C-alpha cells in the first residue's frame, strides 16, 4: 500500500497552514544560504588565489607606502619575473557612500600578471595609450551606468589635487574576471600618472607604492623569493612583508575580526527558530489526527507507520520550503552584490551551501516530525479513537 498519497493529502489538508509553514522555512533557508555565502565569498578570494604571485607590502602598516625605489631592487632578486606597482587611491565618486576600490598600477604588467582580467584587445590598447585612461570592472560599470569613453570624476582624499578639483579618468575598457580572487568592482589607472602629478605639485599626498605585486619566474617557489626580499629590507628604511597572494587576501578576511562568528550566531538563531516552527506545525497536526492515527492502528498498521507518516510529512514540508529558499538565494545574488558589493565584491552562493541547506532541511524535517510522530506511535488505538477531535 502506498502511504505517499496519504502523506500528501494530509500535508495539504490545511492548504493555508501548509503554505505558511513552507513560507517560513523558505525564508529561513534563504537567510542561512545568505549568511553562509558571505563567509564563503570572503574565503573564495583566498582559496582561488594563484600560487604564482606574491605580494610585497610594508611590514609596519597597511597604510604605509613603500618607497618607489624598491621597484628595481625587487626586480633584481632571483626568481622574480615581473614586478608591478599598486597604489591604493581612495577617491570618492560623488558621495563617500559609493565606496569602491581604485588602484594606480602598471597597465601592461597588470594584464600580463593577471590573466584572470579579461577585456577586448582594442580596449586594452586604448587603455595603454591613454595616460589618463582607466579600466573598470563590469560590476561597478553596471552599478553606476558607466560606458567606455565616459569620463569619471574622482575626488582625491589621500591624493587631493592642489586646485581642489576632482581627478578625471576616462574609461577605456570594462573588464570581467574569470576567478573569485579578482573582483569586478575595481578601477585601475596608470600609476605613473599619479606619480607625475605628485612630482609636479599638481596633487598632494605620500609618494611611493602601497604594494608590489610579483610574478614568479617559472620553476621558482614563492617562499625563498619572499624571504630574500624581506631579508633585503630587514634593516629598513621600511621593513617589508612578502607573502603569497592567498595569505595576503587571508589577512584582509582576518582583519574583519569576528564577523564570521557574528554571522554564525545569527545563523544559529535562525536555525532554532525554524526548528521551533516545524515542531509546532507538526504537533498541531498530530493533535488533529488522533482519530486518523487510531483508525490506522485499528486497521492493523504497526506502530511504525504513524511515525513514518509524520516524518515523511514534515520532511516534505521542510524540503519544499528549502527548495524555495535556495531558489531565492540563487535569484538574489545580483541584488546582494549591489547591496554589499563594497565589502564582498564577489558574492556568490557556492554549491556546497546548497548541499548544506538540503542536509539542514532533512535534519530539521526528521527532528521536527520525530516528537509528534513518536507520541502518535505510542497511542492506544481505542483511546485515540475516543479522544479524536
Amino acid at each position, binding site marked *: 500500500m502506498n502511504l505517499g498519497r496519504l502523506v500528501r493529502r494530509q500535508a495539504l489538508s490545511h492548504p493555508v497552514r501548509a503554505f505558511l509553514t513552507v513560507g517560513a522555512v523558505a525564508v529561513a533557508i534563504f537567510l542561512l544560504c545568505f549568511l553562509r555565502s558571505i563567509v564563503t565569498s570572503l574565503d573564495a578570494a583566498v582559496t582561488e588565489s594563484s600560487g604564482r604571485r606574491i605580494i610585497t607590502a610594508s611590514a609596519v602598516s597597511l597604510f604605509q607606502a613603500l618607497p618607489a625605489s624598491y621597484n628595481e631592487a625587487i626586480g633584481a632578486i632571483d626568481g622574480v619575473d615581473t614586478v608591478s606597482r599598486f597604489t591604493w587611491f581612495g577617491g570618492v565618486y560623488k558621495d563617500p557612500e559609493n565606496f569602491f576600490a581604485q588602484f594606480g598600477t602598471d597597465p601592461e604588467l597588470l594584464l600580463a600578471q593577471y590573466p584572470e582580467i579579461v577585456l577586448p584587445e582594442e580596449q586594452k590598447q586604448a587603455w595603454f595609450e591613454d595616460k589618463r585612461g582607466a579600466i573598470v570592472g563590469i560590476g561597478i560599470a553596471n552599478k553606476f551606468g558607466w560606458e567606455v569613453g565616459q569620463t569619471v570624476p574622482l575626488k582625491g582624499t589621500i591624493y587631493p589635487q592642489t586646485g581642489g578639483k576632482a581627478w578625471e579618468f576616462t574609461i577605456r575598457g570594462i573588464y570581467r574576471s574569470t576567478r573569485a580572487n579578482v573582483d569586478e568592482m575595481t578601477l585601475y589607472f596608470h600609476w605613473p600618472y599619479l606619480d607625475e602629478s605628485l612630482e609636479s605639485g599638481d596633487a598632494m599626498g605620500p609618494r611611493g607604492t602601497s604594494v608590489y605585486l610579483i610574478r614568479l619566474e617559472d620553476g621558482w617557489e614563492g617562499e625563498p623569493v619572499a624571504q630574500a626580499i624581506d631579508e633585503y629590507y630587514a634593516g629598513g628604511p621600511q621593513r617589508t612583508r612578502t607573502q603569497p597572494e592567498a595569505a595576503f587576501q587571508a589577512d584582509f578576511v582576518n*582583519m574583519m575580526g569576528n564577523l564570521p562568528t557574528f554571522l554564525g550566531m545569527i545563523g544559529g538563531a535562525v536555525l532554532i527558530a525554524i526548528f521551533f516552527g516545524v515542531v509546532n506545525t507538526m504537533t498541531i497536526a498530530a493533535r488533529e489526527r488522533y482519530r486518523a492515527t487510531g483508525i490506522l492502528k485499528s486497521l492493523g498498521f504497526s506502530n511504525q507507520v504513524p511515525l513514518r507518516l509524520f516524518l515523511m510529512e514534515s520532511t516534505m514540508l521542510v524540503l519544499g520550503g528549502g527548495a524555495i529558499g535556495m531558489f531565492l538565494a540563487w535569484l538574489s545574488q545580483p541584488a546582494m552584490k549591489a547591496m554589499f558589493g563594497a565589502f564582498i565584491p564577489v558574492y556568490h552562493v557556492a554549491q556546497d551551501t546548497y548541499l548544506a541547506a538540503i542536509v539542514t532541511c532533512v535534519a530539521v524535517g526528521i527532528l521536527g516530525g520525530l516528537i509528534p510522530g513518536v507520541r502518535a506511535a505510542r497511542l492506544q488505538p481505542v483511546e485515540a479513537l475516543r479522544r479524536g477531535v
Partner: protein
Amino acid sequence: MRHRLVPFRYPLRSLMVRWQASLLSALGIAMSIAVLCGVFALRNGFEALHAETGSDDVIVYLRKGATSEGESGITLDRVNMYKALPEVQPGKNGQPLAAGESYLALFLAKADDLGLVNVPIRGVEAASLEIHGDAFRLVEGRALAFGSDEIIVGRPLSSRIHSCKLGDTLMVNVTPFKVVGIFESDGAYSSEIWGDIDRIAAALERPMRQRVVAKMRPGVDIAAHIEAMENEKRLPSKVMTERAYFISQTGFLGNVLVILGNLLGGILGIAAILGAANTMLAAVGSRTREVGVLRSLGFGQFAVLIAFLTEAVLIGLAGGLIGCLLVLPLDGLQTGTMNWKTFTETAFAFRVDAGLLTTAVCVSVGLGLVAGLVPAWRASRLKPVEAMRRS
C-alpha cells in the same frame, strides 16, 4: 450583551491550555527579536563609543579633501600656523593648547593567535594630553616621558594585542618602544597606542602630521570659526569639532549594520509572522465549537475578533519579552570589530538600552498583531449554529 467584549481571562487561559504551541510561536518571535536587538545593540555600542567622547570646544583640522586622519597629511610649518591662530586658548605654561598629532594603523599581532590586526598608533605632543584631558585617564604605570621611546596603551588593547602589556617592548618598524603606562578612555582613543610624536615620526620615517587639535578660547563662535577656516585659502583645511569628527568615523560601519540589521530582522520577522499565524489558525480551527458557544452566548463578531487578536498579541508580547531576556546578557559585553571607515580594530561594548528594549517589545507586539489578523477574522466570521454543528 451585543457590545460586551469577551473577558480577558478567556484568551489568556486559552493560551495556557495550549501552552506548548503558544510557547513555540512565542519562541519563534523571540528569536527574530533577539537577532534584531543584537545587531542594533552592536551598532548602539559602536556609535555611543564615538558620539559620547568628543568635545565641542576642541577643533580638529585635517588637510582639505581628507575624510579621516588616515588620509590626511599636514606639514610642520602648517601645524605651526594652526597653533598661532588667535582663537586657540593658551595653556597653563602660556603655550597654545594646540597640538599636531600623527596617526598610523600598525600591523600588530593579536595576543591569542597569529592573526594580525590594524591598531592605530597616535603621536601626541604634551599639549595633546591637556586637550584630551577629560577623555583620558592613566590607570597603570606612569605618564609618557616626552623625548624618549615610550608608549602608553589603551586598556582594551593591552590584553588583546601582543607586546602591549605594561613593561613590554613593542617594535615600531625597526625601533623598540617601551610600554610605560595603560590608559582608559570612554571613547575610541581607548583602542589606540600613544607616544611622543617626534619619536614616532622618526621611527616610522613619517615627518608629516595627520591632524591638528586645538582647544578654543571660551566665547569663540565655533561655527563661525569652522566656516572661516574652511574658506581660508592659505591653509586648505577640513575643519570640524572633535565630536563631529568622531561621529563622522562611524558612518560606514553604522550604515552596514543598519542595512544588515534591517534585512535580517525583516526577513526573520516575516518568518516569525508566518509561524505565529500558523499557530493561531490551528487554534481557531480546533476551537470552532468554542467560537460557536461564544457567539450563542451573545458575544458579537467584533468581540470574537478582539478575543483572538488579544491572544495573538499576547504571544507577540511573550516573544518580545523572551527576546529581550535573551539579549540582556549582551549588554556591556566587550567586543572588537573592524571600523570600515578607518580600517582599524575598534574595541567597544554591546549596549542594550531602554529605548532598544521598548522598540523590541513594540515590534514583537506588532508581529503578533499582524500574525493574528487573518485567523481572528476567520474566527469572527464563523456562523454560530454551523460552528456548533461542525465539529
